[in-house]
Structures are given as C-alpha cells and as structure tokens.
C-alpha cells in the first residue's frame, strides 16, 4: 500500500493566531460594558467606525499587494481597531476614528509588511499621531453620564459624532487625570482636590470602573494563558512602586498609587496594549524589563511631562527599545556556560 508523506513533527495543536486575536478582542468586553454604562453609547459608534475603516484599509492594501484577502479573517485588524476605538474620546468626531484607524493599518502595520512585521503598536501609533495632530478633538472627553450637564440620548450622540456640532464643548469635562495634574500644578493639595465631584474613593468616577473592567478581562486572558504574566505585573508593579514612593515622600503633592492604577489607560495598557506580542520584547527577562520601564515612563510622563496620560507614548518609546532588550536578555542555551 502506498501512502502520502509529510515532514516530522506530525502532531499539531488547536491553538492558532486568529484564536488568540479573537480572544483578546472579546476580553475587551467587560471594560467596554463599563464604558457604555458610565460614558454612554458613543464608544459603540467609534468601534463601528474604526473596525469598518480598518478592515477596509487592510483589504485595499492586500489588493494592492496582490495578496489573498485571508488575513482579514485573522482578527488582528479588528483588535487594533477596537483598541484604538477604546482609547479615543467617545464623542470625538467621526473623522478622528476613521483617520486613526486608517493610519494604524496603513502606516502602523501594512507598511512594514503586515502582521508580525510592525515594530510599533499600530493602535498606539495612531493614537499618538491623532493626539499630536488634533489635540483639541482628542482632549475633549465626555464626563460620566451621572455628572453630565445635559442628557445625551442616542440621537444627540449621533449628532455629535457625525455632524460635529459645536455644542460639543458643553458636553466635555476634563478627565480625572487631567484635572489632577492641573490642580496639583496649581498648588492645591491632594486632599482638597479629591473632594471634587469627579473623584471617588478609588480614583475618578467612571474611569475606575472602566479600568476595573479591563483588568477583569486581562486577568481572564492571563488565566487562559493567552498573555504572559511578565508584562502586566512588571508594568503595574513598577507604576505602583514609583507612585507609592512619591506619594509616601510627599502625600499632598502626588496622587495615590491606586489613582494611577485605575485612571486613564493604565489597565487597558497593561493587559491589552503592552502585551501585543509583535511589538513587545519576546524573552521572559526582556518582558519584565520592558513592562517595568513602561510603568516608569507612564509615571514620569504623567507627573513631570506635558500630557495627562502617557500610556501610548511610553509603549511607543519602549517599542523602540524592545529589540535591544531581546538581544541582551537571551536565555542560556543548554550546554553553554553563559
């Protein structure tokens, strides 16, 4: 009897990259739900805009490169789009989402050769470009629904995003991070600042729930071995340590570690953005250093830098350093002394 042949090893596993990407996307749901509850349905429209644009851009590039359209099915574009959509203000005009998603896919991913070849995290690259190019639109955040000056129904949200009416200013309020930074800079002490309505015992209202949601999703990912423990724990650990150090040193002048952990994009960054395998470090020790340095940079930029939130910039800076980290943290090979 004759048989077909194949090269060893012959066993395979059910794990696959699309499965990984899809699982990470689905793990965003708790945080997304919190965002919906606290900040309204604007984020859903942003998601839709980002995902459609991202898939469209990817299809365009694949056609131009004369490749098959199968990579559209690997969920990586959807994941990038979702991360971007969750990072931009829910009421940002529609062209922000579209520009961002297009930039992320075109310049953040496909320009380098597609999945697996990009040195930077595409979502963060797009976010940084948007922030620098359109600072006004990117810094107008809606307050939590409970604190909003006026009710925003679905139609109003649609008007806001698609038709970009000037009434936007009335809908916005500084984020807890932004407000904290400005007021500390003005000399008010932490104790006084935290009596403001936007703060709650843990951190900022609304923002803390969103961060907790992302943390839950992230822990689920870790539990199912879809992300490693090194980057999130190093990131959160170093952020905690640094902020704790400063807080203990001068209690009135710096926010609490808990505030840092549950504000802005900390949890989203720790579990979903910094853990992007393509742009992060790959060796275990390298990942620890990578995560730790991101945490340090986040603290430094938040406290001493010009922007209220710093996750995107920290991740991008460390993406630059990741190859060097990989080179110097290679594990020891069997049979060689070191």
């Amino acid at each position, binding site marked *: 009897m004759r048989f077909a042949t194949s*090269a060893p090893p012959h066993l395979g596993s059910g794990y696959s990259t699309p499965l990984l990407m899809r699982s990470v996307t689905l793990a965003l749901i708790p945080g997304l739900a919190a965002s919906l509850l606290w900040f309204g349905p604007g984020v859903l429209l942003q998601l839709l805009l980002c995902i459609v644009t991202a898939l469209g851009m990817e299809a365009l590039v694949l056609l131009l490169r004369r*490749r*098959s359209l*199968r*990579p559209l099915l690997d969920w990586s574009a959807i994941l990038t789009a979702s991360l971007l959509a969750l990072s931009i203000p829910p009421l940002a005009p529609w062209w922000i989402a579209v520009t961002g998603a297009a930039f992320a896919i075109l310049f953040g991913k496909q320009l380098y050769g597609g999945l697996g070849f990009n040195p930077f995290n595409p979502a963060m690259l797009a976010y940084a470009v948007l922030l620098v190019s359109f600072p006004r639109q990117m810094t107008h955040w809606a307050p939590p629904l409970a604190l909003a000056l006026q009710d925003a129904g679905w139609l109003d949200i649609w008007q806001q995003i698609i038709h970009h009416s000037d009434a936007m200013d009335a809908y916005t309020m500084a984020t807890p991070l932004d407000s904290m930074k400005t007021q500390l800079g003005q000399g008010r002490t932490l104790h006084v600042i935290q009596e403001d309505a936007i703060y709650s015992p843990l951190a900022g209202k609304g923002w803390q729930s969103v961060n907790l949601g992302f943390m839950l999703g992230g822990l689920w990912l870790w539990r199912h071995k879809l992300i490693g423990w090194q980057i999130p724990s190093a990131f959160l650990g170093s952020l905690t340590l640094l902020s704790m150090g400063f807080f203990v040193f001068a209690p009135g002048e710096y926010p609490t570690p808990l505030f840092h952990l549950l504000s802005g994009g900390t949890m989203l960054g720790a579990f979903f953005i910094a853990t992007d395998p393509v742009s992060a470090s790959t060796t275990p020790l390298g990942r620890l250093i990578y995560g730790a340095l991101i945490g340090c940079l986040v603290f430094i930029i938040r406290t001493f830098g010009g922007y209220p939130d710093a996750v995107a910039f920290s991740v991008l800076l460390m993406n630059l350093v990741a190859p060097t980290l990989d080179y110097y943290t290679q594990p020891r090979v069997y049979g060689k002394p070191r």
Partner: protein
Amino acid sequence: MLGVIALVLIFALLGSVLGFSARRFRVEGNPLVEKIDAVLPQTQCGQCSFPGCRPYAEAIARGDADINQCPPGGQDGVDALAELLGVESKPLAAEPRAEAGPVVALIDENTCIGCTLCIQACPVDAILGSAKHMHTVIASECTGCELCLPPCPVDCISIVPVKTGIADWKWPAPDDKVA
C-alpha cells in the same frame, strides 16, 4: 581667545590620539584580500580570467575585477562577496555548468597514454601517475576545475557528477509562503 586656545588644544589631543592609533594598531598587508580569498572556492580554475583565486581576490580588492566572475562559487559566492564588500549583489556573469552539484574529473584508463600533461596542469596535485604509467584522478582531492581537460592529447578526461547517497542528502526547506 580662551575658546580658541581650548579648541586648538582639544584638536591637538584628538589628532595625536589618531596618529598614535594609526601607528600602534596598524594592520600589515591587505586584510581585505585575505577575506575575499577566504570566500572564493579555491578551485584555481582560471575561469575568472585570473591565474588562480588569490590573483582574482587581489584584483577585486584593487577594483580591477567584478565580483560575479567566479562560476564555481556560484550565485551564493557572488552574494557572499557582495555582502563582504558592502555592494549590491549581481547575477553570475558566466552560465552555470550543465550538471548541477559537485563534479570531478575522470580519466578513461583505456585511452590514457601516460603523457603527464594533465598532472602538470592540475593546480591541487589531484592526479596520480608518472611518465608512461597510468594516470588517475584522486576524486577526493579533485575540485572540478577542468584545467586538465585541454592539455590531454587523447581527450580521455571527462567531467562526471560526484555520486551522492543518503549521507549527502539534506532536508529541504518547507515551502511555507507567508500569507
């Protein structure tokens, strides 16, 4: 004024460091020629139009010869030279030989007349024999340079592929094209 003096002193210091290094760390000979020669296949066949691999290496180092003149080195050799010299690689100038893989010369012993002309031609002394005695090619030493073919007056030397068995077989690369 002080600035001028400071700059002059700094430049003098740097200049003397450079001069000292030039003397102390001087490299004898032309290391580039050695490196080029190390890449060449050493068949000494002369197909590059130079009398041996070392003259060809020297010509490349001087800039008198192109990097794609060596057929025994193959395209791999051209690419290696291109990488060594930091230039663009180019296709091999000559056509590759008809038989793929390593070849050796074979003397037809019935026709050989024992004239020793091929022995004198072989650059690596791979032919055993003496005047009026049988000549034979030591296959393990033969590089397949074909320099013995022209001198033979009875044309009894042929080029044959080296017999390969499972010990020479290598696993092929998988044909996975990245999507």
